[in-house]
């Protein structure tokens, strides 16, 4: 389990206990990344994990469902760097309505045939989110009542959010990489090193 780099080995993250509780209940692996609890499960545990989360852990609020396309070669933006495993990482964020605890359940799907059972019977809100993930990533949701296009026109071909899908405007003008820093009008760069505030006394007080 990783924790924020600034913590020493002896301090326990305040969310650790909760993360362990969730991981234990669903049979997954917990990770705390920058104050966010992520619990990794396998694809066949997907529905049961979220059902447990809803029924036993009180995480009744459905936040979002989406995916991340991890690819070594990308058409847009910068590649992820060395040693990344090519996969679709599914994300389902749920939370409770009391203390505001939240968990992002995640699972990995293979790139060539991403299929995962649908969550519409567990959380009704998953309906639209899965439609969006389907049209944007090409992920197939087993058991979804109607995987029609949500945002894109019905005749649209392709999955725009895949890293292999180019951004047409960038075909014309290449990705600037590290040199896209323009000076702001009025002299200073907003990313200037010096950022001293005004004098101590509050002029408005």
């Amino acid at each position: 389990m990783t924790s924020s780099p600034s913590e020493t080995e002896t301090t326990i993250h305040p969310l650790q206990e909760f993360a362990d509780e969730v991981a234990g209940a669903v049979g997954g692996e917990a990770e705390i990344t920058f104050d966010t609890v992520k619990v990794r499960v396998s694809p066949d545990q997907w529905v049961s994990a979220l059902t447990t989360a809803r029924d036993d852990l009180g995480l009744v609020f459905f936040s979002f469902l989406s995916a991340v396309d991890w690819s070594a070669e990308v058409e847009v933006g910068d590649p992820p760097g060395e040693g990344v495993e090519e996969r679709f990482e599914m994300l389902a964020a749920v939370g409770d309505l009391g203390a505001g605890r939240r968990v992002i359940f995640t699972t990995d799907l293979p790139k060539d045939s991403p299929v995962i059972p649908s969550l519409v019977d567990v959380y009704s809100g998953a309906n639209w989110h899965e439609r969006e993930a389907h049209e944007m990533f090409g992920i197939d949701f087993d058991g979804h009542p109607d995987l029609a296009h949500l945002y894109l026109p019905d005749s649209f071909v392709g999955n725009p959010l895949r890293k292999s899908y180019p951004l047409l405007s960038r075909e014309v003008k290449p990705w600037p990489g590290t040199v896209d820093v323009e000076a702001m009008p009025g002299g200073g760069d907003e990313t200037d090193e010096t950022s001293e505030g005004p004098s101590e006394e509050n002029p408005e007080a």
Partner: protein
Amino acid sequence: MVLDQDLVRHLAESSVSVELETEDMTLNIGPQHPSTHGVLRLVARVDGERAFDVHPVIGYMHRGYEKLSEVRTYPQITALVNRIDWVSGYANEVPFIVAAEKLMEIEVPERAQYIRLILTEMARISSHLVFMASYPLELGAATPLFFALRERERVLDLLEGVTGGRFHPNFNRIGGVKPAYGSGSSTRKVIQDLPAGFLAETRDAMDKVTVVVDEINSLVAGNEIILARTKGIGVLPPEVAASYGVSGPNLRASGVKFDLRKVEDYLPYHLFDFEVPVGENGDCWDRWHVRLLEIRQSVRIIQQAIDGIPSGPLQAKVPKVIKVPKGETYVRAENPKGEMGYYLVSNGGQGPYRLKIRSASFSNISILPWILEGVLVPDIIAIMGSLDFVLGDVDR
């Protein structure tokens, strides 16, 4: 003649009714429509006055923010992101910037946090005033529109005075808020703080906002017709709301006392004393009433923030070229429309590897097929208006 038992049973069981062949009409509400808050299309089958099988068709405003943000640097995305929910422009930027700052582990100076909080609450007041203006108009009352928008102008003027933009402030920078530079040759390097008189004018504007909210309340609250049009209409049970992901005032109107400002730490709300208004029945009236009460609470927060604002720098020290180290995080905030969150996956580059934008209105209107089932046609407008969504937020 004695009727045998089978025949009697058959006659008793068969329903002898003439089925009137009535065709139901498919009604298309939108995408151009005064009441749909933008380009939303509802395809409804209407039988007489009742609507069945309502399908929202969205995507007319899809701008591809998530794909775009993969090719933008963080300051550029700040400019993009406040166009998601354009009515409350400033509030969209904050969770994104906080997410980036979390990954960079930057501590934002207190004064900047207070300024962010004040501007976010002003954005909330602005958004709810638009609701106060447009919802009675959809029911037929034309006058609250003018009162609410007139006071909103004050708030927008204040926002413009500080940030330079009424709707799209683009005021956040990684590490704080944007310090203003002078424009003359001698003042170019002098960093200016908030404009002179801003805090005093804000106090004044908050008083006026309180007055107009009371006026609109008196105009609307006791009105029999408004009560008849909104009480008991569009009841949303809390379990259904939670399952669909409905958040914000819509969820609180159903009786769930849950406000992200109280449980998340993206801004220092724990320093201020404010209540979370909750409704009883989850009908349209409660959704109206909760937003009205929220304006009053926002005024309260702003007044406390103005009284306690500390002095100090406006932005932490950040490197010249911003590169956010590798990591992932999800930061969510209480936007005026509901829960707005950013799931930021960073690779160490100048822009995100993946930015998932969780927008409030998208989940809020996913409930439309459920809530509009079997509803009278005029009530469709009343219910949709009470959900208070913005198409930019839905379609991203």
